[in-house]
């Protein structure tokens, strides 16, 4: 059985990873087809003051908000926003963090020290605070959120890639390839990268969950997406003054966040079990 087939077999048997990916696929599905699935797609922007704050019903599954907009439809579009923000942010952090980690791990000079020091500096402030700072410096918007999150998450990738690269370096096969005259970059790309890729994948999945929570928090605080964007955090912030009567206004966006982050965490945990046999804890 080829490596890929074996991985697929393990994957489909692992309930955690499987459920997680089902959830995520549903998320992607929803996000892409929001325009089709939403009963009131126009409610992203149009308001219906006559129908404000209606409880959940057969016409409005999750009720309406203070502008009479259908919450269910807005949540679906919010999924799109959430996905875009987190994919770009995590993707960008990966593009920045992984190469830096490879370089820092492979070389052992002042350069790698410098990279790790810079990473440490970025890690010395809790991510959300740094993100708020950045977002405010640029003016709050979805774009500044994406930028802020990318700039604050890359050190996690760098750290893990750095550690693994260093460990690998001690394995003799790296010396062997160098002795054979392979260029360093080639070695890094062809030999080191495939070996650290499983950690990168696991970290990305967990990072997605983390990023979604932070982005929602920024939206809630008003430091990120701004109303009337149907972002989940923004929606929850809007709902605050209408509690406790309009309980549906706050409850459903939060549940959406929960389900999605769960999905990514489950996938990450499941992937970790599959890809990284070192962390087997099933034996005595």
């Amino acid at each position, binding site marked *: 059985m080829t490596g890929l087939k074996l991985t697929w077999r393990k994957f489909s048997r692992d309930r955690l990873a499987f459920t997680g990916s089902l959830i995520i696929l549903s998320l992607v599905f929803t996000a892409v087809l929001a325009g089709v699935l939403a009963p009131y797609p126009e409610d992203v922007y149009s308001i219906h003051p006559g129908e404000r704050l209606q409880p959940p019903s057969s016409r409005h599954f999750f009720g309406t908000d203070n502008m009479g907009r259908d919450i269910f439809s807005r949540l679906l579009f919010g999924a799109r926003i959430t996905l875009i923000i987190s994919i770009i942010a995590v993707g960008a952090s990966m593009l920045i963090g992984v190469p830096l980690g490879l370089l820092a791990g492979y070389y052992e000079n002042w350069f790698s020290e410098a990279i790790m*020091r*810079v990473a*440490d*500096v*970025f890690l*010395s*402030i*809790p*991510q*959300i*605070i*740094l993100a*708020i*700072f*950045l977002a*405010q*410096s*640029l003016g*709050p918007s979805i774009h500044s959120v994406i930028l802020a999150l990318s700039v604050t998450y890359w050190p996690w990738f760098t750290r893990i890639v750095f550690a693994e690269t260093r460990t690998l370096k001690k394995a003799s096969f790296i010396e062997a390839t160098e002795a054979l005259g392979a260029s360093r970059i080639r070695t890094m790309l062809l030999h080191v990268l495939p070996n650290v890729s499983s950690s990168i994948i696991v970290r990305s999945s967990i990072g997605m*969950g983390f990023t979604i*929570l932070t982005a*929602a*928090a920024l939206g*809630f*605080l*008003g*430091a990120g997406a701004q109303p009337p964007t149907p972002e989940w*955090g923004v929606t*929850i912030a809007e*709902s*605050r003054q209408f*509690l*406790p009567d309009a*309980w549906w206004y*706050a*409850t459903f*966006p*939060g549940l959406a*966040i*929960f*389900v999605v*982050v*769960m999905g990514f*965490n*489950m996938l990450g*945990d499941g992937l970790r079990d599959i890809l990284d046999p070192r962390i087997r*804890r099933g*034996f*005595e």
Partner: protein
Amino acid sequence: MHKNNLTFILKRILYAVPAIAGLLILAFVISRIIPADPAALVAGEMATPQQVEELRRQHGFDRPLHVQLLLYFGQLLRGDLGKSLYTGRSVFSDLMDRFPATLELTLVSMFLSIAVGIPLGIVAALKRNSYLDHLLRGFTVAGLAIASFWLGLMLQLLFGMWIGIAPLGQRIGVDPPATVTGLYLLDAAMTLNGEAFLSALKHIALPALTLSFSSFATITRFTRSGVLDVIQEDFVLYERAMGLPPRLVIYKYLLRNALISTVTQIGLLFGLLLAGTVVIETVFDWPGLGLYAYNAIILSDYQAILGITLWAGVIYVTMNLLVDIALGLIDPRKTEL
């Protein structure tokens, strides 16, 4: 061993200095170089063009960058973090004022997560794969997926509005106790002020519970895996083979090793808690640094935001330093130079 310990501590402190310096420089870059017009940001949205110009000259934003950097460090050393648009006072005094509230919330939350998380983690590890273990794992996985601000709102909804047993916000419902430390619970206890103590307790309950929820999940998880890792270690097998009493093995030999991983988590935990206070204080109207940050965001009070960022960074670095030192004291392998 003593000499080793001291050198280790000094080395770690020295190590923290460039971290803080780097942090300050990063803040400088973000506040002066990234924005289109730093002066306008600081002046705020309500400022007139003349006021912006005035500010620009006052703060030296029109000077060359390296001069600005020097001025910046000079200001910081003097403790000058600028003035807040919101309160009109110096940011520094605002931070000092609001710090005890956040500190109290963070400490209580940390205490809760540790007091509940560590024992549960140990039990989950010792009774691995039991019903209890699976329940706890499910609980912790869920805990890491819940947005804390949403949880806070839900708890507020449930206990504050529907059931009505918890206050909706603020730190205390009666006159605050006489100030000794600024931590209401401690001060009330020390001045034997029962009324204030109870009121403070009622008010801190929901925010602390919410804040500790996700960190509790992290601690339980890591304690569990820490204990599991240690259980499989050869020295535990040897201690069992030599018939050492089980209680000795667990509480003396196993625990210290497992704690190594837990203590490592406390540093990370503190960062999570600190970050969490921003949203939790907003939800519960808790008059600390988090709420200060929230107001600063709403009003685009830039100096305040800069001040908070620096402050958070310094606290976080200090906390990690303390954790490192603690680790060095628990694990003698760390102090090997």
